[in-house]
């Protein structure tokens, strides 16, 4: 696994080197900070509850848009410039490359989320906090990010155009984020159940309410594994 880690470190450095990282962090904090603390109608002060549910709800959408922006260049750019050839002829397997790329995006998101921990500290001063619910909310965000990163990597692995990769990641993502839930709402019986199970939002909400169910964990992990597996297959075709 060492090569995957070396790749992850390089990618993470590339994010911070090219200012993409700072741009993403600042935008993310600006969005989530505004809606969590300042938006007036619907923010924490309006609800008068010492929890971060508002933040989790906003972060779910900001991450949905930001993660494809992180993942789009990962494999697409390497394919476009040909560096993928150089990378894959080094002592790494296709799988290690995909894992390394995944890890770098995941760490990038984790760093961004870690910077929102002052929100947590702030609300502990504002009232009685359900610490379990906060941590499981963060866990939910990390799992959701992992799922979208693997979808984004897959999108990036099948094209050499970053814009296509970005839009593709969003259009696959929108089903999990939103559409499966809508479809489930209009269906009954088995099909309704199926789509409701597929909806990422449903699983995310159950975790961010503080209930960590193995079903939800398995759901997120299977999206991650499937996404990474498909990316691996896609880069092994050459």
């Amino acid at each position, binding site marked *: 696994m060492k*090569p995957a880690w070396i790749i992850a470190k390089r990618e993470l450095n590339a994010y911070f080197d090219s200012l993409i990282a700072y741009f993403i962090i600042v935008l993310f904090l600006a969005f989530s900070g505004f809606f969590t603390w300042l938006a007036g109608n619907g923010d924490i002060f309006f609800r008068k509850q010492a929890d971060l549910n508002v933040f989790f709800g906003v972060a779910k959408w900001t991450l949905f848009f930001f993660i494809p922006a992180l993942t789009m260049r990962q494999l697409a750019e390497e394919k476009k410039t*040909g560096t993928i*050839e*150089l990378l*894959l002829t080094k002592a790494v397997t296709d799988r290690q490359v995909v894992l390394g790329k995944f890890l770098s995006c995941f760490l990038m998101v984790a760093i961004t989320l870690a910077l929102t921990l002052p929100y947590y500290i702030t609300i502990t001063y504002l009232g009685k906090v359900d610490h379990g619910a906060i941590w499981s909310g963060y866990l939910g965000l990390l799992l959701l990010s992992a799922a979208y990163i693997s979808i984004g990597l897959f999108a990036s692995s099948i094209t050499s155009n970053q814009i296509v990769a970005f839009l593709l990641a969003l259009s696959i993502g929108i089903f999990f984020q939103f559409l499966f839930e809508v479809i489930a709402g209009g269906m009954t019986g088995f099909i309704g159940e199926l789509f409701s199970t597929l909806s990422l939002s449903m699983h995310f909400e159950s975790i961010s309410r503080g209930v960590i169910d193995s079903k939800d964990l398995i759901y997120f992990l299977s999206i991650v594994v499937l996404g990474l597996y498909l990316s691996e297959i896609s880069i092994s075709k*050459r």
Partner: protein
Amino acid sequence: MDILIQHLNKSYGPQKAVDDISFEVKTGEILGFLGPNGAGKTTTMKMITGYLPMDLGDVLIGGQSVKTGALKKQIGYLPENNPLYLDMPVMDYLAFCAAIQGVPHSAIANRVLDMVQVCGLGAEKHKRIRELSKGYRQRVGLAQAMIHDPAVLILDEPTTGLDPNQIVEIRELIRKLGQEKTVILSTHILPEVEATCDRILIINKGKIVADGAPATLRKQAQGRQVLQIRLEDAGVEDARQALANLPGVSAVEISNPSELRFDVQSHPEHLSNREIFELCVQRKWILAEMIPLETKLEDVFRDLTVN
């Protein structure tokens, strides 16, 4: 490590890029891979590195198949267009390549400095690769290929974009490396092959059309000796007649009557230097020049690949 290529085949759709190629490269040998554009050089090299899967056949390095992927640490590869991470500083990039090729952590810094020195990157080492000229990027490409001290070097057009001084340096470097490593390099520049390679492999339309040392190939193509001579104190027609009557000579051509220049072709497997000299002594002609005309590698190449 020896490289053994057995019945390599690769098609892109209906087009056969590599058609049943087999050859062997021994340790300490520098093999020059020649061929017109689209002959299958790059495809073959990509298959040797294990990057492209082969349709049929196998590549064995040190007796082990590249299909297992276990040999990657033994191979240093410089791809055709020298793709590099342009945003990275040279030193960081080389350190990354060393780390990923499994160079122990404690040895990385030294290896990077070695490569910077060997490839003459000293003045540019802190720049980002994007800021380097093409020649310096090529040096970075060579440095990354050699950073883990591989037993096998696969270099796809290693000297493109280099200035003449750099080309000489890189050739010397390759020659030096070739003493203990197995090197396969492809190129369009024919003098380069003669200067660097022990052996030449010419491929055309996915097939091997020639294989041998540069000198051998030239001799094969030549077949018969051609001498360019210049005489003094002789009559044009007289000299032509006398030369043509020599037993070893098959044809005489007057290339410049006023300067008394002739092209003399010998019979196959026959050398006529001595006969010409003796004729001149006998007739009291001055033999001012006698130059053996060699078939150039260019001619060999053209003969084999144009059809």
